[in-house]
């Protein structure tokens, strides 16, 4: 699926860079405009500063940090990770320094880079979601809050995001305690994601992000043991991209607020798929582990695509997919 070629604008390919630079800026709700649609996905970019050796963080649309819990969390016991075809399963279990250490130690380091910081909030209770969100909203230097209601690896906490009632409770607990843009990140572990996206819109989310990793299992046939310690972990990487594109398209057809696409993005073409499916921005995840500069390569690829196709504003591409079902109900 590609956008229709268009006639290059004046000064097209031969012009000077500054004169023809496409406008990559995108709005992701709540009045927040990013300089470009390339964000990082929570849990794949540390607290941001770890990547400063490899790239200029200020070039990114936004950095979404590792999910933050109220108190420090050790995470799950090994094995935490295994490779699968074109992807991997993780069961980290939110290894978090806790919200106070994040604000005290991690946020200042990230604040030295001129990039919007999106804080991902995790809780094992409604109250924890509220407390962390409130605490982060009081801190300087956070551009938006993302609610991680879909972590597949904390069994005690249930996956809030697979239950409409619990998702509503999380939204109703957090929305009143923050004026920051609130992004609801959805799990793919539901039959139909549209009611969850609509619920987010109805309860005051400024944007919907999806998908979280897909609950998955891999088994070592010789030891007959599951390959991550919790048995089930979260599948990520290029393997999940077509599932993610479909779900992003479904969510985007269901709500008017911006949708942020996540799932197996490794190249600019992958990111473009999500934009065409209806995402206003994308989050780049697992590929950061393998190519530390992947976000920048994707950003440069998007800019090159816009130049080559004569697209002056990248947001024009959002939701322009052709050949999709007229409505999700018609999907097989």
């Amino acid at each position, binding site marked *: 699926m590609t956008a229709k070629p268009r006639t290059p604008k004046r000064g097209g390919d031969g012009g000077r860079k500054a004169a023809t630079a496409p406008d990559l800026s995108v709005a992701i709700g709540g009045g927040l405009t990013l300089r470009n649609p390339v964000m990082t996905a929570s849990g794949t970019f540390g607290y941001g500063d770890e990547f400063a050796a490899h790239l200029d963080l200020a070039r990114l649309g936004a950095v979404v940090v590792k999910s933050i819990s109220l108190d420090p969390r*050790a995470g799950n*016991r090994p094995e935490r990770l295994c490779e699968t075809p074109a992807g991997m399963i993780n069961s980290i279990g939110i290894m978090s320094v806790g919200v106070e250490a994040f604000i005290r130690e991690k946020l200042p380091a990230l604040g030295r880079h001129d990039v919007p910081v999106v804080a991902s909030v995790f809780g094992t209770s409604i109250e924890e979601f509220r407390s962390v969100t409130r605490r982060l909203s009081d801190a300087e230097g956070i551009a938006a809050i993302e609610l991680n209601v879909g972590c597949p690896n904390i069994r005690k906490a249930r996956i809030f995001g697979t239950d409409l009632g619990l998702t509503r409770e999380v939204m109703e607990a957090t929305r009143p305690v923050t004026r920051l843009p609130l992004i609801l990140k959805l799990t793919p572990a539901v039959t139909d994601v549209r009611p969850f996206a609509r619920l987010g819109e109805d309860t005051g989310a400024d944007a919907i992000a999806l998908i979280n990793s897909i609950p998955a299992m891999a088994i070592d046939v010789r030891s007959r043991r599951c390959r991550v*310690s919790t048995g089930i972990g979260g599948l990520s990487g290029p393997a999940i991209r077509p599932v993610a594109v479909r779900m992003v398209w479904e969510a985007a057809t269901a709500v008017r607020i911006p949708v942020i696409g996540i799932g197996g993005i490794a190249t600019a073409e992958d990111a473009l798929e999500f934009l065409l499916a209806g995402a206003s921005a994308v989050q780049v995840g697992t590929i950061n582990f393998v190519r530390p500069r992947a976000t920048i390569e994707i950003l440069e690829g998007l800019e090159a695509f816009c130049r080559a196709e004569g697209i002056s504003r990248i947001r024009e591409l959002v939701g322009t997919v052709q050949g999709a079902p007229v409505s999700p109900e018609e999907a097989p």
Partner: protein
Amino acid sequence: MTGISRIATPLHQPARVEGQRRLAPGTSLLRLSVPDFPETLPGQFIMLRVTEGGDPLLGRAMAIYRVERRRGRVVIEIVYRVIGRGTALLSGVDPGRTLWLLGPLGRPFPDPPEGATPLLVGGGTGIASLHLLARHLRAGPRARSLPRREALTVLLGARTRREVLCRADFAALGARVLVATDDGTQGRRGLVTALLEDTLAGEARRGRPAGIVYACGPTAMMEAVWRICEAARIPCRVSLEGPMACGFGVCLGCAVPCRVDDPGAPVRSPRDRFKLVCTDGPVFDASALAWWWDRAEAAAAGLPAERRP
């Protein structure tokens, strides 16, 4: 811990495959060259990707066996055993191919304490990280810390004679190399850990007791080495492997549990409970680790992790 301050920023770059040589059945030495590579300390590793595409997706963590600086090129050698799809693909890579690597990564082996005689224990491909250490102890800036030039002993363990790796390379460094094989086809018959016990006892009798043991090999071997060292009150440093996606501290996949006195105490920091092989290690003080992490009874033993069925 000297050397830590000299840890260089890793480079992510394409490397040219110069060639590879079979050392033993299923085990090869791969030579890669890059235009530039930061100073490498013993115990550090690289992440090496076998493919450009998405499958297999992740890089493989490989101990750096040797680094040779030539005019305008740096040749990096690694020793690997074929254990899965990635390493099987790697074994078929021809000279001239380009592979992406990230490195050097991780924290190095610390110098021996002043005046302490080091003893190296390697099993299988674990010998790879020890070779760079032996080289530095003999010839590098660390040579001065050795009390006697002839005082470096290296113990190598393998299942059988054909799987004893790189013995000549260690010998060429002037090290005293002792071998143990499971089947007795070379050196002493039995486990390298039994050889270690005898060697420690012999050196103590001669009045030159080992002051520090460095070990790298299968987890069970390293755990046994640590127990022997604990009993003999000798410091033990081990270099671990772990399933890692990134190699630089962000995927959090390679966590290993630390020894915790009170597992019921609240977690003050995640690093109290788990260390990351990639950035806290791969070299660890063996006495700081909880060695039972790969056993089913871990939860029953009160491991701090939130074990789930």
